[in-house]
């Protein structure tokens, strides 16, 4: 630290600069990566607060474990399939096991691109869990996301963001580029469709439609929404890949779109139920952020407000309808991320401006169609792929925990813990007996 590493740093900085690496950009991308990372923690609390007390840990773990699993799959093969040179549809093996992912790189070091993109992969996977909380078997979930992160996420990231050769598939769709600034398609529509399919395959919770399953800690949901919004400034702002006016624009839009959604959502809530609900406000935040994601660097702040307003309607009414339907997408992943993402993607095709850059795309009917096609392809791929992967996992493990465990709550059964406890009536199992027990392999009561 301090001066030594400093001089070392300056030396490297010299090297970096020679390669066209800009410290200010690196600084912003380092921060943005950390911000997107933090969204995973936010999501754990957003989702965790909405479930029942007996499933709080299980729900949070579904986000946290993706930090481990997708962190590893992304470094082993995911990043390679997404960003190593290959064809228009899939990357190659050039970055397998982080080969060739080093300190060099134009603009920013490749290793930093790896980190930034990795946090996107992690959060996408974690988003899916909202549809299957309170009943999906944890081991099946882990197996599912391991495969999904490689076979579904990485290819779609390639289509949208790969720039080598002719670029990814979506770089040239109906003669134009499908615009997706920060991941409306790759992250939100992708995760939402996967969530929908998985919710169908796993079926509804036993109590669904029979009992009121209320959020056990709304403050956690608000905390999660707050952290998500905070982190999203890195998600959208960092997607400018520079600390420039574009990043600032993305940031302003990420402030204004959800602000507009909050206001409209609150108004609808007020007219419908006479009350502005907190869960509603937290949902509005997410919807506004999702909707602006594909557009963040392509539209003016006023357009961002309009996008935030428009996106409220499909999401609001769908979510209200969903609660009474027989579709147990438990935490409304599709209602918020799917419809919000689709609305945002389509509106990007309308509101995009080129900010004086003649080569950039602008909104219009043509662009709208491109966006539409991109949405359809992404949804179809994610839907079919999810179905196949989940079917595969089902061959090995039941996707769903049994009814007794569901009634008891997954925390105790899947994690051997309770979220909140005062330790009363908890008897320590003495060393000797637990040691003996440990000898019996695979037995549950062990030391």
């Amino acid at each position, binding site marked *: 630290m301090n001066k030594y590493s400093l001089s070392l740093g300056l030396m490297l900085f010299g090297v970096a600069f020679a390669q066209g690496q800009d410290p200010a950009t690196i600084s912003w991308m380092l921060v943005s990566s950390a911000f997107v990372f933090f969204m995973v923690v936010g999501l754990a609390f957003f989702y965790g607060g909405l479930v029942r007390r007996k499933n709080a840990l299980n729900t949070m773990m579904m986000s946290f474990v993706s930090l481990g699993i997708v962190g590893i799959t992304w470094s082993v093969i995911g990043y390679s399939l997404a960003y190593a040179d290959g064809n228009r549809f899939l990357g190659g093996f050039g970055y397998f096991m982080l080969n060739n992912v080093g300190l060099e790189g134009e603009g920013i070091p490749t290793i930093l691109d790896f980190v930034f993109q990795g946090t996107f992969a992690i959060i996408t996977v974690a988003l899916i869990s909202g549809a299957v909380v309170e009943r999906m078997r944890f081991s099946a979930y882990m197996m599912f996301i391991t495969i999904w992160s490689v076979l579904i996420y990485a290819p779609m990231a390639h289509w949208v963001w790969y720039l080598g050769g002719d670029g990814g598939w979506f770089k040239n769709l109906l003669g134009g580029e499908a615009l997706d600034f920060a991941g409306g398609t790759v992250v939100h529509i992708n995760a939402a469709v996967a969530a929908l399919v998985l919710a169908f395959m796993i079926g509804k919770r036993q109590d669904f439609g029979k*009992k009121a399953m209320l959020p056990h800690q709304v403050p956690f949901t608000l905390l999660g929404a707050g952290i998500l919004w905070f982190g999203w400034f890195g998600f959208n702002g960092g997607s400018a890949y520079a600390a420039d006016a574009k990043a600032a624009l993305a940031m302003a839009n990420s402030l204004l779109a959800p602000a507009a959604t909050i206001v409209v959502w609150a108004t609808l809530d007020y007219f419908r139920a006479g009350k502005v609900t907190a869960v509603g406000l937290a949902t509005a935040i997410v919807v506004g952020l999702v909707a602006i994601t594909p557009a963040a660097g392509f539209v003016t702040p006023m357009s961002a407000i309009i996008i935030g307003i428009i996106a409220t309607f499909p999401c609001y009414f769908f979510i209200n309808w969903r609660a009474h339907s027989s579709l147990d997408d438990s935490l409304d992943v599709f209602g918020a991320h799917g419809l919000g993402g689709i609305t945002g993607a389509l509106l990007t095709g309308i509101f995009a401006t080129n900010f004086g850059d003649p080569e950039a795309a602008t909104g219009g009917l043509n662009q709208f169609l491109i966006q539409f096609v991109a949405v359809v392809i992404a949804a179809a791929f994610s839907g079919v792929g999810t179905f196949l992967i989940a079917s595969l996992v089902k061959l090995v493990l039941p996707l769903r925990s049994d009814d007794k465990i569901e*009634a008891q709550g997954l925390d*105790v059964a899947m994690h*051997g*813990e*309770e979220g909140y406890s005062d330790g*009363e*009536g*908890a*008897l*320590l*199992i003495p060393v000797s007996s*637990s040691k003996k027990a440990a000898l019996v392999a695979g037995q*549950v*009561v*062990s*030391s």
Partner: protein
Amino acid sequence: MKLVVAVIRKEKLNDVLASLFENDIHGITVSHVQGHGGETEKVETYRGLTVKMELTEKIRLDIAVTDPFVERTVKSILKTARTGEVGDGKVFVLPIEKAYRIRTGEEDAEAVTPVLSTL
């Protein structure tokens, strides 16, 4: 007058309430309790500490009823709270010597007949 005290499974509360309401039993006090009986204990583990949870979350209902209502109340609970597995709980009937409604000062039978005007 009797006090019917029932200890039931948490997940059965809504069913039991519904059935009591159907039987015109509307005055009920509910508590969150923990029970120990013949149920299998859950084992939990925290950083290498293995613990046996001797207590399971249960719901306790206290229902004061006039004598003619006792049977109905007990039957209604026995029927809806049953799953057939160990841990379904118990019903106890205790004598009440006197009952008062705080709002009006009414006593005994009158005290426990709810006003349903507001429903």
